[in-house]
């Protein structure tokens, strides 16, 4: 079984490029050039240099001793939270800004939910001196004020998405519309492993540095490259894609994807796409998405803005359908408790997204000798207000 994208842009039955003709020239240009550009030695050199000197890679692979003792298994945390800007998102924006420059683009647009991808995009635009416009749902702007301020300080223009539900899905629509209206000078930096081909594959490849590092780091710790499990939370699925990438075809490595159940799978307030979703088309690709019987895309819910997306990337839809990955869902409450537990046991305040992944240890029993590598995709600074309100701190 192949879990990578095929030459037509599909992962099994998922993927493709279902885009209006207005976007065809841009997406086609990217499709023809992305692999070639990424393979160029000077691109590789610049990308790796920035990941090292600017982002601070490699991010540590940390053996979480007290957490491991509590759950009686061996837990390693891949510390993406220690990256510059506080999450894995920067890996992709560094890659895409270098891509945009090589394609001769002078204007960058992006969508953002919680603001992490927006901040990571504004950061690299400042670094490269390119104009940056970030679309963000009106509701998200109100609940993520610190990140809005960060983007502005970094020189970006933040435009509220006022259509539809005024959240991530609508910010994505607005960014796509901007691209339609500015077809020549603009590159759209998609923040997750979603969108029309080649975006899911390109984003995955930029994030694949996560699993590349895990391999050699685990070898140092455990004397073997492959863990028994890799675990990541999944909204659109970019940190998950990067965490799994080099293990996709290693059959002895089990893959766990953790979705946000919100208030509960059957509560009507959830973002557990693998359970509640059905095959359809969202933002230019065929994948699993939450929708009405009639094919209208529905509004997901999660306490975590980064997991609050009605679809999953097409690669993940394929991993789900083929059974390669085990999908678990975690409620707001379970995630918040797991987040607080990591603070107390390890002295690390995780992003609420990552807290969803941490919560699986309450649900699933691992063997004492199992090596579990979990992607700690982001730090909790941005979520302080949420933690404060939730725990009445």
């Amino acid at each position, binding site marked *: 079984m192949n879990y990578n994208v095929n030459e037509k842009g599909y992962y099994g039955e998922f993927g*493709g*490029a*279902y*885009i*209006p*003709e*207005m976007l*065809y*020239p841009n997406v086609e240009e990217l499709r023809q050039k992305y692999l070639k550009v990424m393979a160029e030695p000077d691109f590789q050199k610049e990308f790796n240099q920035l990941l090292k000197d600017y982002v601070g890679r490699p991010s540590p692979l940390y053996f979480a001793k007290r957490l491991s003792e509590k759950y009686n298994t061996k837990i390693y945390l891949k510390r993406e939270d220690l990256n510059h800007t506080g999450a894995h998102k920067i890996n992709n924006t560094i890659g895409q800004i270098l891509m945009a420059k090589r394609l001769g683009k002078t204007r960058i647009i992006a969508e953002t939910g919680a603001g992490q991808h927006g901040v990571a995009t504004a950061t690299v635009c400042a670094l490269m001196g390119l104009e940056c416009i970030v679309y963000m749902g009106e509701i998200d702007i109100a609940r993520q004020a610190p990140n809005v301020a960060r983007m502005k300080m970094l020189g970006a223009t933040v435009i509220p998405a006022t*259509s*539809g539900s005024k959240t991530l*899905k*609508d910010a994505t*629509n607005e960014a*796509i*519309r901007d691209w*339609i*209206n*500015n*077809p*020549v000078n603009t590159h759209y930096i998609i923040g997750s492993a979603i969108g029309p081909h080649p975006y899911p594959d390109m984003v995955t490849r930029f994030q694949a540095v996560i699993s590349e590092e895990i391999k050699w780091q685990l070898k140092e710790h455990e004397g073997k490259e492959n863990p028994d499990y890799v675990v990541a939370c999944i909204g659109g699925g970019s940190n998950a894609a990067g965490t799994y990438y080099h293990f996709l075809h290693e059959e002895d490595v089990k893959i766990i994807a953790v979705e946000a159940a919100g208030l509960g799978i059957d509560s009507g307030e959830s973002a557990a796409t693998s359970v509640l979703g*059905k095959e*359809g*088309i*969202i*933002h*230019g690709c065929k994948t699993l998405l939450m*929708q009405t*019987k*009639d*094919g*209208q*895309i*529905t509004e997901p819910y999660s306490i975590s803005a980064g997991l609050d997306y009605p679809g999953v990337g097409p690669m993940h839809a394929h991993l789900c359908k083929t059974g390669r990955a085990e999908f678990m869902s975690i409620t707001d409450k379970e995630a918040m408790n797991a987040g607080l537990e990591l603070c107390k046991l390890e002295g690390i305040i995780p992003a609420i997204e990552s807290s969803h992944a941490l919560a699986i240890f309450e649900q699933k029993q691992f063997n004492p000798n199992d090596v579990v590598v979990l992607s700690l995709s982001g730090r909790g600074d941005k979520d302080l207000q949420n933690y404060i309100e939730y725990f009445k701190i």
Partner: protein
Amino acid sequence: MNRINKKLQDNKKLLSIYFTAGYPNLNDTVTIIQDLEKNGVDMIEIGLPFSDPLADGPTIQESSTQALKNGMTTEALFNQLQGIRETVSIPLIIMGYFNPMLQYGVEAFCEKCQELGIDGLIIPDLPVDVYHEEYQSIFEKYGLINVFLITPQTSDERIKYIDSVSNGFIYMVSSASTTGAKSGFGEEQTQYFKRIANLNLKNPQIVGFGISNNQTFSQATQYAKGAIIGSAFVKKLKEHGVGSISEFVKGVIG
């Protein structure tokens, strides 16, 4: 012969009007279609509303959101169109995004269209190559014409490919934009219209995006077979209701 092909043989410039089904009110659909025909419109695009209309600007987005709130669904639209051919004879096209059709079942959707007397479909997010490989035979089986878009950025080579797959007309998007974003045409558009006219395509072209009145209609049809008005009409309905249809159409074609 399909009504679209027949209409394209008329010795005149064609006016096609888009509206969003279920807007302003859920049950306005049939009234709007009948009034448009009565007032001399040549072809109608019935918009099947979608929650996430990527290629549309604010006017059509809002009308879609409202139509869905009003209770419009694929099934409801088909029910409203039941018997439409008893009163309406001009070509009718359903314009909508691909996901609702996919969920209905592409073949079932096409079969239903044929049964109701729908002549064609416009699906902005169904790319021509996917259509060609997976769906063309189904559309043809039910006598439906699928209409593709081209833009100023579409290469000549790709336009020729689209022309070869098309069997009705080509929807020529006047500028790189979402619907309703721009009004009127400049030198750049005229050059583009001329360039396309000089390609001598087998399918006639109908211009869309940026047309709102008599002046822009005349400009757009100077080098093309016809023009499509969407956002300007939806806006008129929003502001003045279905009673304003006659006034609107007269303002375009006199």
